Structures are given as structure tokens and as C-alpha cells.
């Protein structure tokens, strides 16, 4: 399926869970396609949101973020998101990591809630009346926090390989929490992959299959589909790209110009041409320098 067709599954107002760990593993080809589709009023969930949420925020596509943190790690705060929250245009519904994972875990197993001891004593629960409430352990009387089930409309993931049927494989295990929980909690799952392979090739390495085909609605081939973020172990984050972004991202006109220039590419091939062979070689050869 093309990225355009896959993103066609998403409507204005949807809750979209996006794989993201700071500068790691964001399905940016799908994020750019979401921007190209002009979707509005989206609620986004990520474990550590980064440049993907920042670009969506600058484009006015986001009304709410539901999650624990928004940061590009060594490249600092996401300025578009930050400006949106400070202006009251974007709501940051903030949870601890176990809090958001409890909500998604309940969604995945069709339970009303899961509990956590996280956030007790912090100022967060008081802001989360609709989704986090103190309850008593019926066995011991201990006070714990019930975190209401969360079932986003759709999730966007990126993987190493997939077949046309939708079997999804990761090399090196599922390091990121998003990969393990989103396909079970979300109504639909869209996965971009570095390469589409045959089902026979998938059967050679069944131990690398981490999402079964029946849970996947769309598979999109996108080589370097996480660029400019990293995708372990294939490529590291593009340092120069992030630095260019940090350089323009406090200035609305310059930020939008950089986003639009990269979203103008209609296909992944066009995008990779824009990024250039040298930049792609640099992010791919990281193991030699590590």
C-alpha cells in the first residue's frame, strides 16, 4: 500500500498513537504523509514524543498530546509544541510512563482500567479526573491509582521488515514500548517497513515476527522511514538535520518552510533524493564510529 492510501484511514479528530523515543524510531514517512493529508484536530500519544509531534504541532494538526514527555533529547525542547501549549492551543494531558502504559494496557486487554503506584503524591492525578482515580486494593486496603482504558483510533509504527499480508518483523527485539502495546490497544495499525519481503522470507525468521498479520491494517514500504530519527540497528539519528531544525524551529516562517520543503516530496524516493546519498551513508555507517 502507498503511504497516501494508508494515511487515508485517518480522519480529522482521530487519536493517533505514534512510535517515538525522543530521537529514536519515529515513523517520519507516515508523519509527513499525515501532514500532506492536512489532517486537523488530532490527539497524539507517544512514549517520548519528538520531532514528529513538533512538525504536526507547527502545522496546526494537533489539539492534544496524551503522554509522559515531549523532548528531542540532546536537541532540546520541541518549540512548535511548546508554543502551542503556552498559547493554550494544545492541551498536554500529562501522565507518568507507567500511567500511560497502564491506560494502554487496559485498552489492549479490554479491561476498564489498570492500576499503578506511579504519580501518587505528584500534582498530576488532580489534573486527570476523567482518567486517573484513587481506589482501594480490595485485599489489603492500599491506595493505588486506577488508570482508565485508552483505545486510540490508529497507531503508526516503523519496523525492519514486513510481508504483504502484514506480518511485521523487528531485528534486535522490541526495545520500544510502543511496538509492544499500540497494535493491541489501537483500533487500526499502520506500519511502515524498511523492506517488504515475501511471506516465505518471514517464515525463515519467525522469532523476529512481533506483530501478527491479523492485527495490521496497512503495510507501507519506506526505506529510511524514520529519518531524521534513528532506527536501530540500521541507522542513527541525522545530527546535521536535527541541528538545522533546532536552528529554525523558534521562527514560525523558517520552521514552516523547512517542514513544507520536506513534506513536498510525494514519494519516499523523492524524499531520499532531497536528503542526499552522503547524509544517508553517514547515518548508516554509525557502527564503525560508535
Amino acid at each position, binding site marked *: 500500500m502507498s503511504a497516501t492510501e494508508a494515511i487515508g484511514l485517518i480522519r480529522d479528530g482521530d487519536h493517533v498513537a505514534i512510535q517515538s*523515543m*525522543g*530521537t*529514536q524510531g519515529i515513523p517520519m514517512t507516515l508523519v509527513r504523509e499525515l501532514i500532506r493529508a492536512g489532517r486537523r484536530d488530532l490527539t497524539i500519544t507517544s*512514549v*517520548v514524543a519528538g520531532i514528529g509531534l513538533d512538525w504536526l504541532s507547527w502545522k496546526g494538526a494537533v489539539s492534544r498530546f496524551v*503522554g*509522559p*514527555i*515531549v*523532548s528531542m*533529547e*540532546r536537541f532540546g*525542547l520541541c518549540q512548535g*509544541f*511548546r508554543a502551542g*501549549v*503556552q*498559547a*493554550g492551543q494544545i*492541551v*498536554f494531558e*500529562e*501522565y*507518568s*510512563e*507507567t*500511567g500511560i*502504559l497502564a491506560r494502554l494496557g487496559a485498552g489492549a486487554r479490554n479491561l476498564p482500567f489498570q492500576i*499503578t*503506584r*506511579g*504519580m*501518587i*503524591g*505528584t*500534582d*498530576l492525578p488532580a*489534573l486527570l479526573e476523567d482518567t486517573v482515580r484513587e481506589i482501594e486494593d480490595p485485599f489489603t486496603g*492500599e*491506595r493505588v491509582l486506577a488508570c482508565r482504558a485508552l483505545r486510540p483510533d490508529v497507531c503508526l509504527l516503523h519496523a525492519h521488515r514486513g510481508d504483504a499480508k502484514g506480518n511485521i518483523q523487528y531485528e*534486535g*527485539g*522490541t*526495545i*520500544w*514500548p510502543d*511496538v*509492544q*502495546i499500540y497494535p493491541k490497544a489501537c483500533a487500526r495499525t499502520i506500519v511502515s517497513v524498511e523492506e517488504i519481503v515475501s511471506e516465505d522470507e518471514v517464515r525463515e525468521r519467525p522469532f523476529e515476527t512481533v506483530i501478527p498479520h491479523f492485527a495490521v491494517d496497512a503495510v507501507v514500504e519506506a526505506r529510511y522511514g524514520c529519518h531524521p530519527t*534513528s532506527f*536501530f*540497528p540500521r541507522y*542513527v*539519528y541525522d*545530527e546535521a538535520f536535527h541541528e538545522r531544525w533546532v536552528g529554525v524551529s523558534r521562527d514560525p516562517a523558517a520552521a514552516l518552510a523547512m517542514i513544507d520543503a520536506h513534506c513536498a516530496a510525494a514519494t519516499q524516493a523523492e524524499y531520499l533524493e532531497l536528503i542526499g546519498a552522503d547524509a544517508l551513508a553517514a547515518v548508516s555507517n*554509525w557502527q564503525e*564510529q*560508535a
Partner: protein
Amino acid sequence: MSATSDYTVDELMVATLARQFDDGDQACNGAASFLPVCAFQLARATHAPNLVWLAGAVGLDARPRRVPASTLEAPLWHRSSMYMPQYEDFWSYVLNGRWLTKFCVRGAQIDRFGNVNNSVIGADFHRPKVRMPGSAGLADMGSIGKRLIFWTTTHNPRTLVEKVDFVTCAGYLSGGDARARLGLEGGPEVLVSNLAVMDFEPQTKAMRLVSVHPGVSVEEVAEATGFELLLPAGEVPVTAAPSAEQVRLIREEIDPGSARLREFA
């Protein structure tokens, strides 16, 4: 090992943080945690060879050739013996209680009772003056019985405040037995700053000076602190200087690229 005078404050802080970790401990690091990452490796190279380290909360007992520019990304996980899946494995081992009992915490604001803010500056959460990154695992670590070890490279009245604008990570809350009344175990134990070492007085749970770094006066520390810091009885000791061997390990073996100085930019 004898103390040396050839060291800088980053190296003093790394050596002081390293002393907080024992041979039987397990440690993990989060984002932009250059000083803890150096400290864990220094402890492993000296007094705590069996200290377990989960690099970037992913790489078990990693052996990076140097400290890279990011403390979350793959170059830090070099030569790990396991990549820890975060959803099931990492959080289960953390929450279990048997392991990873100490956690290093840095925050934009830390107050006199060890509460930490990494969420918002300003009174209105939904229209903040400054929206900061958010809690990540901090809002868990303060509530699940961990022993919290704070560090900051900006010991000034903007970081060390009387009362945080927002409690992202639960410290001793309003002090005294406020934390215990909620049934929370563990809590803040020590703060290693660029000027001094502090702890928390056992009754009031208010922050207390333990030692000043060589060349720093008690008055300077008091002035740089946004609340009245408790003082120890008698003369205030001077923080132990690192040994020549510790300094060599940091400079030559652990962090030859001086990534730790990113925390002082």
C-alpha cells in the same frame, strides 16, 4: 588512593555520584545524563565492579568506547549483554522492588523538601509561562519506593527553589511525615551540585548542607540556594577530591571526548 588537585568540578561531581552506588546495586540512566553515565562506569572501574548498568534503560552492562553525544541512543549500548524491552521487561524489573532501587534525578526545579518539577513554570498548568518536557519516568520513580539521588550543574536560586511550581516527582512533599502518610517509601537522599553536597534532615526532611566543594564557601552556597539551607552541626566539611586514578579513568578511559561537559553548556 591519594587525592589530587588536578581535577575540575565535573570530575569531582562524577566521583561524588559514583560513591552513591555500591557493588550490589543496579543503575539505569535516562536522557542527557552524562554525569551519572560517567559515574556508573567509574564505580564499575573502581569500588563496584559488579554494579549493573542499564545504558539508556536498554543496554545491559554496556561497554561504550566513549560517552556519546546522546545518553539514550544506540552508541551508548555498545557491547551490551542484553537489549531490554521497555514495556514488559524494563518496567517490571523496576517496579518489582528487588532491583534498580536507586535512581538519579535531575530537574528544572528542586525544592527544599526534594520535590522536583520538570513540567511547567507558572501557576496555570494549561497556560504555562514555560512548558518543559514533562515527567517521563520521573513521576513514577518518586512514588514507587526508589532512593532518589539528585544532581544539578546549575546550583542557583532558579533551580533550587523554596517550592516547586508543580510536583512532577514526589519528594518529601510538605516535609516531615507528609510522604510517609501517603504510604510512600524511599525518597530523596542526596543532592550533588556543582557547588556542594546536600542531604535531607531526618525529622523535618528539609535539605541540609553536607559538604562544600573545595574552594567554595558556605556563604556562596547559601546565596546560590533559593531557600534557607539547614547547616550541619559544627564546621562544614569539604567534599573529598577525586583521586588521581579516578581522574585518569574519567579522562582517558570513560569519557575521552568530554561529553560530560555538555551538562555545563
